[in-house]
C-alpha cells in the first residue's frame, strides 16, 4: 500500500463505518438496512430523475466545499461558508429581482454579484486577521450569524414579497432562472458552473503564480515572506475567492432551486461544505464526487423515507458520523502510516520489532 493512498482510503473507511453505524440504527428500529439503503441508492441513482435530483442537490455543496477548500489551502480555517453563501445568495437575488436584462447578461451578472459579495464577506476575516491578528475561526463562525440575521431582516422587511406569510422575496425575473438540463427536475447549468469552478480552482493552484503563492503562504508564512511573497495579499485573496465560491452556492439555490430568496435558505450547506472539503483533503477535484455523495444522501433520503419506515434524517445521522470519523482520521492515518513503516522495517531487517500498533490493526476502521 502506498502512503499517498492513506487519505482516500481512510476517508472511505470513515464513510463505510458511518453507513455501518447507520445500519445498526436502522436495525435497532426494527427495519431492514438492506431495504433502507436499497431505497436510498435507488432514489439517488436508480433513475435519470433521481440522478438529476442528486446532482442538483450536490451543486451548492460543490461550491461550499470549494469555498472551504480554497480558504484552507490559503491557510485560513474558513468556518464561514454558510454566511458567505447567504450573502452571495442575497446579492444574486437582488440583481435577479431588479435588473431587467436578457438571460445572457442577467445570469452572469447575478452570479458575479454573488461571487463578489460572498467574496467580500469572506475577506472580512482575512482583513481582521492581517490587521489585528484575530483568529479567523472565531470571526468566520460569528459572521455566519450576522449574515443569516441580516438576510432574514431583508426578506422580512424591505424585500418581503407583498402578501406572503413567509419571510421571502418575490420570484426572481424569469431571465435570471438557471436553464434546466433535465426536464421535470431542477437540475440546471449551475452544476456545470460548479464543475468548471472546481477545475478552475485546481488549475489556479497547480499552474498559476497566484495559486502557488497562496499555497506556499498557506503552508509556511515565514518562508513565503522571505522568498518575496506578499503573504497578507495572498491570504486575503484566498479568502475572497473562497467566500466568492461559497457565495455562488447561494446563487444557485436562489437562481436554480428556489427562484427566490427564502429566509433560512440553506439547511447547513456551508457546514456540509466543511466536511466535504476535509474529506477531499482540500483537493478541488475531489470535492466533486464527495459533494455528489452528500447530494445523494439528501435526494435518496427522501425516497428511503417514502418506501420504508426509515426517516430521511438518517442521512443527517450518517453525515454526522462521517464527521466524527473524519476527526479521527488524522490519528488513524498516522497509525496506518506507522504500521506501514513497521512492516517495511520488519521486511528490511528480518527482525520483528514489538508491534507498536496492535490496536490500530484490531480496531480496523475505528
Amino acid at each position, binding site marked *: 500500500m502506498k502512503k499517498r493512498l492513506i487519505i482516500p482510503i481512510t476517508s472511505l473507511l470513515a464513510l463505510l463505518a458511518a453507513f455501518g453505524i447507520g445500519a445498526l440504527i436502522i436495525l435497532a428500529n426494527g427495519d431492514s438496512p438492506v431495504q433502507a439503503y436499497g431505497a436510498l441508492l435507488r432514489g439517488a441513482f436508480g433513475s435519470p430523475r433521481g440522478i438529476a435530483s442528486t446532482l442538483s442537490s450536490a451543486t451548492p455543496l460543490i461550491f461550499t466545499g470549494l469555498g472551504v477548500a480554497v480558504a484552507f489551502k490559503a491557510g485560513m480555517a474558513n468556518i464561514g461558508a454558510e454566511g458567505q453563501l447567504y450573502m452571495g445568495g442575497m446579492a444574486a437575488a437582488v440583481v435577479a429581482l431588479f435588473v431587467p436584462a436578457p438571460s445572457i447578461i442577467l445570469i452572469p451578472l447575478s452570479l458575479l454579484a454573488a461571487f463578489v459579495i460572498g467574496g467580500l464577506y469572506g475577506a472580512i476575516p482575512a482583513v481582521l486577521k492581517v490587521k489585528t491578528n484575530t483568529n479567523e475561526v472565531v470571526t468566520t463562525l460569528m459572521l455566519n450569524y450576522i449574515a443569516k440575521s441580516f438576510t432574514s431582516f431583508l426578506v422580512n422587511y424591505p424585500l418581503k414579497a407583498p402578501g406572503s406569510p413567509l419571510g421571502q422575496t418575490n420570484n426572481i425575473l424569469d431571465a435570471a432562472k438557471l436553464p434546466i438540463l433535465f426536464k421535470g427536475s431542477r437540475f440546471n447549468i449551475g452544476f456545470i458552473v460548479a464543475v468548471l469552478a472546481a477545475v478552475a480552482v485546481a488549475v489556479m493552484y497547480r499552474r498559476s503564480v497566484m495559486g502557488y*503563492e497562496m499555497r*506556499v503562504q498557506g503552508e509556511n508564512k515565514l518562508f513565503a515572506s*522571505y*522568498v*518575496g511573497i*506578499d503573504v497578507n495579499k495572498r491570504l486575503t485573496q484566498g479568502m475572497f475567492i473562497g467566500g466568492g465560491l461559497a457565495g455562488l452556492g447561494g446563487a444557485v439555490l436562489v437562481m436554480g432551486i428556489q427562484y427566490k430568496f427564502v429566509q433560512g435558505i440553506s439547511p447547513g450547506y456551508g457546514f456540509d461544505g466543511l466536511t466535504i472539503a476535509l474529506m477531499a483533503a482540500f483537493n478541488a477535484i475531489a470535492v466533486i464526487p464527495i459533494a455528489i455523495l452528500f447530494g445523494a444522501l439528501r435526494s435518496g433520503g427522501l425516497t428511503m423515507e417514502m418506501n420504508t419506515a426509515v426517516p430521511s434524517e438518517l442521512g443527517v445521522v450518517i453525515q454526522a458520523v462521517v464527521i466524527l470519523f473524519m476527526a479521527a482520521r488524522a490519528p488513524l492515518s498516522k497509525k496506518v502510516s*506507522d504500521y506501514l513503516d513497521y512492516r517495511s522495517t520488519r521486511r528490511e531487517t528480518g527482525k520483528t*520489532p514489538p508491534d507498536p500498533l496492535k490496536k490500530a490493526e484490531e480496531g480496523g476502521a475505528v
Partner: protein
Amino acid sequence: MSENIYAVEMEDICKSFGAVRANRNINFRVLKGEIHAIVGENGAGKTTLMNILFGALQPTSGRIRINGQEVTMSSPNKAIRLGIGMVHQHFELVPSFTVAENIMLGHESAGKFGAVDKAEIYRHAKELAEESGLKIDPYAKVGTLSVGLRQRVEILKALSCGAQILILDEPTAVLTPNESDELFEVLRRMSAQGKTIILITHKLKEVMAVADHITVLRQGETCGTLEKAKTNHMELAALMMGKSAAFSPLEKTGTTGEALLRVDHITARDSSRLEKLKNVTFDVHAGQILTIAGVEGNGQTELVSALLGFLPVASGSITALGTDITKLPVKDRRNYCSYIPEDRMTTGLDLAGSVHDNLIAGLHNRPEWRKGAFIDYAKTGRHVDSLIDAYAIKTDGSGIAASSLSGGNQQKIVVAREMNFGTKILIVSQPSRGVDIGATRFIHEQIIRMRNEGCAILLISTDLDEVFALSDEIKVIFEGSIVGTLSPDAVTPQELGLYMTGAKKMEGVSGTQEGGAA
C-alpha cells in the same frame, strides 16, 4: 552486589520514528565520575539516545541500567528520581523569576500554610551554588542574565534535583568562546566531585578539550567508544563521517572587485522603538566574503531584516549593484540578494510543499519563469531536475513533500535554490548552525565557490571556527554597532572574542577601510 563502575549502561537500544530508525542497537556505557562526550553528525541519533536515557522517549527495544540496576525509564520524572539531570539546548527558564526561584521551581520547600518559603529557597540556592562552584547571584532576575549564566542556572536546577548524572545537549552552541571555557572548567570540577557528565556535541575541539571518553554515533549506530588520550581530531572526524574526512582548506582564488553591496550608515529600530542598528556601514565587494561576527543578539537579525526589507531603516541607505534598494519591497530586493537563513527548516523551507515548489520559490514570480499569470512549469521542472542533479539531492522525484527528505538533503534544497538565484549578492546566516560536519563543509565549499565566481558574500556568524575558515574580512558587531574591522590573518580568536563581547573596540571604525576599491 559489588560496586558497579558504570553510572549508565544502555544496551541494544533501538528507536524508530515512523520509517526513520534513529537508534539501531546502540550500546553505550559511561563510567562513574567521567566526562563522556557523544559526538556525531546531525541526525546521528545523539539527542534521541539522550532523550531515551532521560525518559522523554521510550525505546522501541533495549535495556537501560543505572548504577548497575536495570530500570524502565518511563518518564523524565523517573529519570530525575534516579539522579539524572538534563540541560537542554534551549533553556527552560522563567525570565521574570529570580535565579533561586528558577532553580527551586517545582520542588519549592513549603512553609506555613503551603506557602513558598522564600528564605529557604534562597538559602538552598546559595548553598548549592557554593557547593558546586557555580558562582551566581541567587537574587538576580534570570531575564537580565547572559546566556552563559542562564545555562549555569539550568545546571544548578538539575543539581538541585539531586542529579548525579548530568546530560548537556550541545551546551556551547549559544556560548561565546570564553563562556565555553568557563563551562568546561565547571564540568571538570563537577566530574572531580564525582558527578558523571554526558556531553552531546558535534564540535570536535570541545570534545578533545574536555572529554575522558568519546562515543561516536553515525546514522543511528555506535561506531565505537574511544579514549581521549588515544585518539585525535582526524580519527574522530573520520568515524563521524564514515569516510576519511581530511580537512583540506578550500582554496580561494580570484581577486576582489568592486563593491556590490553598500550599506551606508544605517540605523534601525525594532517594534518597541529600541535602536538595534547604530550607524552600521560596510561594503561587500565582488569576490569577497565579509563576515559580520558577533555574539548572538547584537543586531545581526535586525541587520539581515533591514537588508532584505523586513525592517525599515530610520536613516542611511542600502545600495545593491549601484541601485538604491533602501525603499524596495522584499520581492524586488530578492532580485539583488539571495539569502540562506539561519533557520533553514522554517524560514528556508516550506516543509509541507514539494521539493519542486521549494526549489522555485522566489524565482516563480520572475518574468523569465512565467507565462503570463502562470508559472512555466516545463521550464521550472527542468531547472529543478538540474538542481537535484547538480547538488545530489536524494529525493524520490521533485513532487514529494520536502518534509520527507532527510535533514541534510533539506539543507541542500535551500543552498541549491539560493545559490542559483542569479544574483551577485549572497547573504548567509549561521551556515553551520544546527548542521553536522558534512553539511557544514558542503555549505562552506559552496560559499567559497560562489565567492570565487565573483559574488559578494555577506556572512553572519557567531562561530569562530567558521569566521576564520571563510572570511576575507571581519567586521565585529556589538550592541548594534560595528566595533571592529579585522583581517582574519592578523587577529587571534581570543582577541576577536574580546571584540565580540564588547571588551575591546576600535575607535572611529564605522567607515570602511577599503575605500580604494569602490
